[in-house]
C-alpha cells in the first residue's frame, strides 16, 4: 500500500469510520448474538431502505431518512411481537419487504439519477464524509451510554426474561429499547457495509467473541476488537485488490467465523476420542 495513503482525507475517514462503527458493533452485536435476534436486526436494516429512498426523494442525507425508518421498524416489530402476538418472523418479513418496496418507489419518484445508491446497499467505506463521522461518534455515545445505564436490565432480559419479569423489570420496554439500539447501529453500519450486509457485521464478530468470553462485557470488548480488525483488514485488502470494501469486510469476517468454529469442532472431537 502507498505509505502516503493517510494523507488522503477519504482514507483517514474510512479508518475512523471503521473504528467508530466497531464500538457500536461490538456492544449491540453482543446482545444480538446472545439474545438470538439476528433476523430482527436484518429486518430493521432492510426496512431502513425505505428511509434511504425518503432521503433521496427529499434531497437530504439518506442517513437522516434511515434513522426514523429503522427506529420505527424496531418499535413496530417489537410491539407486534409482544403486544399483538404476531409471530415475530412474520412481522420481520412484512417490514423487511415493505421497507424495501417503499424505498424503490421513492427512489423511482425522485427525478434524475440516484447517486451512490449501490453504496447504501452494499456499503462503501471510502466515501464516508466527515459530517457522517460526527454522526457515527454521537450514536456511539448514545449506545454506550444507554448500555452503561441499563446494562443489568439488558443482561437480565437476554439471559432469563421470565426471571427479569418476576424481578419487576419492564421487560417489553427494555426489549424495545434494545431494538432501538440495534436500529441506531444499523444507521452507523449502513455507511460501512450497507443495508444488505449489516446483519453479518452485527452477528459475526460477536459470535466469534462469544467463544472466547466469560462475561458479556468481555464479549463486547472482544467483539469490538474483532469488528475493528475485520473492517480495517477488509478496507486494506479491498484497496489493494480494488474490490468492493463492504463485501470484502464481510467475506473476511465470514472466513474467520468458519475457521473458529471448525477449529472448535476439531478440538471437541479430539477431546471426545
Amino acid at each position, binding site marked *: 500500500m502507498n505509505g502516503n495513503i493517510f494523507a488522503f482525507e477519504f482514507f483517514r475517514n474510512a479508518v475512523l469510520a471503521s473504528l467508530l462503527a466497531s464500538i457500536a458493533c461490538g456492544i449491540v452485536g453482543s446482545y444480538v448474538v446472545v439474545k438470538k435476534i439476528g433476523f430482527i436486526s436484518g429486518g430493521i436494516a432492510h426496512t431502513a431502505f425505505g428511509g434511504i429512498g425518503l432521503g433521496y426523494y427529499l434531497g437530504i442525507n439518506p442517513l437522516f431518512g434511515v434513522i426514523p425508518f429503522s427506529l420505527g421498524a424496531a418499535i413496530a416489530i417489537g410491539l407486534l411481537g409482544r403486544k399483538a402476538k404476531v409471530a415475530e418472523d412474520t412481522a420481520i418479513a412484512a417490514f423487511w419487504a415493505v421497507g424495501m418496496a417503499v424505498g424503490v418507489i421513492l427512489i423511482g419518484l425522485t427525478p434524475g439519477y440516484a447517486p451512490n445508491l449501490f453504496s447504501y446497499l452494499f456499503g462503501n467505506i471510502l466515501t464516508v464524509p466527515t459530517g457522517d463521522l460526527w454522526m457515527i461518534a454521537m450514536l456511539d455515545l448514545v449506545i454506550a451510554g444507554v448500555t452503561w445505564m441499563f446494562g*443489568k436490565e439488558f443482561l437480565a432480559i437476554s439471559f432469563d426474561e421470565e426471571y427479569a419479569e418476576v*424481578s419487576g423489570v419492564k421487560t417489553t420496554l427494555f426489549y424495545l429499547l434494545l431494538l432501538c439500539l440495534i436500529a441506531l447501529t444499523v444507521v452507523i453500519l449502513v455507511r460501512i457495509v450497507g443495508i444488505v450486509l449489516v446483519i453479518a457485521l452485527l452477528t459475526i464478530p460477536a459470535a466469534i467473541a462469544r467463544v472466547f468470553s466469560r462475561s458479556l462485557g468481555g464479549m463486547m470488548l472482544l467483539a469490538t476488537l474483532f469488528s475493528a480488525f475485520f473492517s480495517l483488514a477488509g478496507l486494506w485488502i479491498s484497496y489493494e485488490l480494488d474490490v468492493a470494501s463492504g463485501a470484502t469486510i464481510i467475506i473476511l469476517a465470514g472466513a474467520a467465523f468458519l475457521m473458529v468454529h471448525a477449529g472448535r469442532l476439531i478440538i471437541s472431537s479430539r477431546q471426545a476420542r
Partner: protein
Amino acid sequence: MTREIVRCDRLGVELGGVRVLRDLSFSVVEGDFMAIVGPNGGGKTTLLRVLLGLQKASEGRVEVFGEAPGSHPEKIGYVPQRLFFDRDFPLGVREAVLMGRMALKTPFQHYSKTDRAAAEEALQLVGLGALGNRRIGALSGGELQRVLIARALAGKPELLLLDEPTASVDPEMKTSLYDLLDELKKSITILLVTHDTGTVSRFVGRVLCLNCGMVMRENPEGTPGGEVARQIYPYPVDLLVHHPSERPESNVKP
C-alpha cells in the same frame, strides 16, 4: 396475629380455552411451609405463575403481601423448574446469582458491594462458594439447580416459591436441598411445587393438593396420606413412611 402472605379467593384461570384452575381458595400465613402437589396438568405451575404476577387470574381474587401479584418483587424469591439458556452464554455463576438482587435496584442503579456480598453469601449457602467464577454453561444439572436457588435467596426474600426444584437432581442433592429448605423455613415462608410426596412429607407443614384445577383437600395431618394420594393421582400410590411434622394453624378451605 400471624401475617397473611398469600390469599386466593375463588381463583380461576383459563388458558387457551382450557380451565386450568377453578374455584381455588386458600391462604398462606407467615412461616408456612406448604407443598403443592398433584398430577401433571393439575395447575401447580400456573398457580405459581399467578402468584408471581406472570399470569392473570380469569376470576376470583389473589393477593400477595396484601396487594395484587407482582407488586412486591423484592419480597419474593423464585426458583423455576428449569432454565432454558444457551450453554455458550458468557455469564459467570456469580453474575447469575447477582441477578437475584435485581428486584431491589432501580434501573439506573448498578450492583453495590452489599449486593455482591449477598450473592456470595447465597452461593455459600447452597454449597457453591468455590464455583463463583465458573461459566454457567459449564455446570452440571444439579449445580445449575443450586445456582437457581442461590439466585432466589440472594435478594433475601420473605416468600420463596419453588417449582419442582428436585426434578433434575440426584438423590444426594435432593436430601441436601430439603435440609436447606428445612433450615430456611425458620425465617422464610415457602411454597414448594413437587411430585416428591414421600420425602417432602417429612419437611412441610401443609400440603395443597391440586387436581384438575380444583383443591382436592388439605390433609389434616399435613401429609398426603395414601387415601389422598389415590384420589389425586390416576395410578396406584403407596406411601410407606409418615413423619408428620409440627404445623401451624391451618386455614385452608377444602
